[in-house]
């Protein structure tokens, strides 16, 4: 199995769905604009 992030495409017109590796350009755009949430166990407010 590939280690690259993958992208799946579903088509509303009924064409078969497909999954492929992301291109280098797509991988470059995989940048979350914010840090993920880390306070799973919050302190009492």
């Amino acid at each position, binding site marked *: 199995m590939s280690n690259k992030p993958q992208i799946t495409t*579903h*088509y*509303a017109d009924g064409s078969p769905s497909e999954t492929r590796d992301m291109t280098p350009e797509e991988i470059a755009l995989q940048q979350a604009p914010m840090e993920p949430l880390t306070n799973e166990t919050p302190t009492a*407010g």
Partner: protein
Amino acid sequence: MAIKTFTTGEVLTAADTNTYLANSGLVQVASGTLNAAATNFVGCFTPTYRNYRVVLDNVIPSASTDVYLRYLSGSTPNTTSSYFYAYRAINSAGTSLDQSGAGINAGFINCRFTGSGQSGSIVMDIFDPQISARTQLVNNSQNLGTSVYISSFGGISFDASTVFDGFQINTLGAPTLTGNVTIYGYRQA
């Protein structure tokens, strides 16, 4: 207003049934599963409907991640810095987890997953993707993690008059998502 009101003992004919089906409020236009970091739903927005409801259920992340949306033109995601979003969120301990962003290259649709083994759901209404106007979106989401529940509401406005025919659900990272996505059009009278 009811299309027709039946009386006791009256026969529901095929014609009546077809009329009701044709006049249902929500019409399913597409569906699919999430099984990667990014999933495209191509061609689900058409001139037939102005507004859409999108339901994501049993969404499970492979690791800590948030969930984002990008609109599509064909299979190409729009990555211009045009997404504005703001969310109120709170967890079951009463801690505020609000999020906002202005001029971002993707819209935030929440869930706020903090690790694997969690599950969430998202419901979105998307307004005017097929009209040359700002495409806007409101959504609610929830996520149950390890002893902590997170609920949020908010929305996204795309600051351009671009016409879109689909959307992409994306973690914007290595984590993948599994889950179900169903897309409905709001029937127009």
